[in-house]
């Protein structure tokens, strides 16, 4: 749409009542979708007395203004933010890469029975994670350490003296377990996103390369991968948001305080007995900051990711 001044003037003149009503409703929509965020931002700059006294969406007045709530929240959440990034970035890259490879194997190369695998993958997007929680805890805390202890002490017994134990209580180990878990559960949605994109790529190009004797790997490396870069942007952004925002897996897999992720620390802050809302709101904004930043910069890709379109 043109934004020339002349158009704008003409549009203003043409604006009838229904048009004005439309914009009024749309502006109300902005109020509706932003007021909880706006009140959070205002409240985090208020003192304890000020936020109890004033309207939540009003800005803090003179001596009711403080940065101490933000400082408290930042100090509480900072280690969690680092842990979240340390866990979410590798998980996101892994899921996107594996999703792309899976989608390629299940789309561009077609074989009978493929649709069965596709159905299983798509259904994997929708399963409630409660249905895997107990086995997950069992796997990471009982089965895997047991297997690894046995293996290492048998094969490398001459080094370990048979005393090696899997460091289940090490914070980094717990974060790695969480990261791998997220990577695995991210594969289905990433596959779906890439698959709908690959289905739209013309077959002719790939057929031509195939007739020339190109291997499946070189087709992926030289044709598909360069073409998927925009889709990688969509998938990485969407998946990063999902992994970073999760609480459930972290609650179950991370119990070392030093390894807690941002959402865990925020939940602990919110669940405190004393409700100092200036601190909890500051915590919410600090914890949301990475995803908000990603959303504001890459909103378009995020929208494509949620709509599952290409």
């Amino acid at each position: 749409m043109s934004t020339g001044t002349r158009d704008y003037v003409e549009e203003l003149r043409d604006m009838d009542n229904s048009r004005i009503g439309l914009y009024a409703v749309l502006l109300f929509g902005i109020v509706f979708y932003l007021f909880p965020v706006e009140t959070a931002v205002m409240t985090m700059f208020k003192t304890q007395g000020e936020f109890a006294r004033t309207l939540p969406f009003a800005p803090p007045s003179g001596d009711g203004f403080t940065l101490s709530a933000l400082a408290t929240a930042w100090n509480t959440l900072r280690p969690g933010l680092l842990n979240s990034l340390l866990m979410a970035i590798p998980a996101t890259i892994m899921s996107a890469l594996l999703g792309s490879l899976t989608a390629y194997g299940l789309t561009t190369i077609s074989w009978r029975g493929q649709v069965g695998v596709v159905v299983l993958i798509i259904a994997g997007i929708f399963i409630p994670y409660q249905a895997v929680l107990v086995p997950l805890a069992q796997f990471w805390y009982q089965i895997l350490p047991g297997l690894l202890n046995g293996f290492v002490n048998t094969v490398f017994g001459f080094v370990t003296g048979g005393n090696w134990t899997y460091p289940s209580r090490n914070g980094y180990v717990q974060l790695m377990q969480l990261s791998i878990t997220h990577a695995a559960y991210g594969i289905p949605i990433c596959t779906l996103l890439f698959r709908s994109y690959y289905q739209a790529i013309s077959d002719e190009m790939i057929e031509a390369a195939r007739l020339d004797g190109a291997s499946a790997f070189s087709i992926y490396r030289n044709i598909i991968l360069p073409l998927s870069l925009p889709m990688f942007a969509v998938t990485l952004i969407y998946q990063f948001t999902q992994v970073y925002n999760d609480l459930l897996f972290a609650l179950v897999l991370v119990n070392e305080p030093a390894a807690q992720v941002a959402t865990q620390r925020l939940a602990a802050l919110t669940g405190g007995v004393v409700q100092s809302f200036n601190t909890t709101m500051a915590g919410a904004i600090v914890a949301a900051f990475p995803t908000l930043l990603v959303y504001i910069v890459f909103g378009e890709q995020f929208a494509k990711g949620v709509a599952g379109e290409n």
Partner: protein
Amino acid sequence: MREILSRLRAAGGGLRSAISRDESNGDQLATDGGTTVTTAGDDTLRKSLPVEWELVESAPFWLPPVLLAGFFVYGAIAWNFLLSLTDYNGLGGATYANFDFSMYARMLNDGAFWHAAQNTVVLLVVFTVLCLALGLLVAILIDQNIRFENSFRTIYLLPMSLSFVVTATMWAWVYNARSGVFNQLIRLFNLEGLLVGLLRPAGVNAEVIQWLSWNTTALAAVIFALIWQFSGYAMVVFLAGLRAIPQAHYEAARVDGATTVRMYMRVIIPQLRASAVSASVVLMVFALKAFDFIYALRGSQPGANMDILATMMYRVAFDSLQWAYGSAIAIVLFVLALLVIGPYLYSEYRRGEL
């Protein structure tokens, strides 16, 4: 393009082995050195194989990730089902013995389970229907050739980019009985007495509305906040659906003299069925997963008014260490999800959309 093809030709050996290529100068080294095997020979090779060549060729790409995801998704669900048949509880490892359905029988006589199941279904249905309605309305408004369309859309979708924990923290403040936004506004307009009278449950004495603890409002409060967070998603899906409808359909309706409302009701909205179906599947699954929101709002004991199967499962398994019972509740949740997505996937398959 020609360059890519010639590179590929140089690189592709008759054995379809992976290429080794010097990245720095782009030189190609065919692994079998000066291949003489033609594509015709390749076809013979394909035909002589007992399994489809494409299956073998594509397996290195999809099989490892599918096995990884399959282990974590379907392996874990099967394992979970097995655990739900045991009596496993307390600290220590699971004992795989005494398989029976006693945990499922226990559910039938557990009042807390029925409360949670009822809340789950109410949440699922009310949340999904209202989210779709609001999303459709907003999508139609945004589709009116408005200025700053992208800005409006970005703002409406913003809550969805936030974590459940973040939005729960914000809404805990919005619903706060003493100084939250809602109660302050209600006080400002002198509506407190009226609303307290209307909403206060029998036997309660409070003079301010306790949105999150009254049994009349608790679940509705959660649903309202979730609609706030996810109606933007429904909007995006409907907007894509609206954009796919040919302009001619609007024009034809206008020529027939239909009013705007009539045009949307009779011509446009019926064409959004596919969008509505796919959006509602995703929204229902979000509703089943609303655990993070409720946990961040009220902890693992949100009270009977707000308890859903997802929170109950976590509490039973990870607070009370009743692993087998928790697993059984998880299976019920899984079956509910299956009831939602099964028919959807089947119809997609029938229409050749998979």
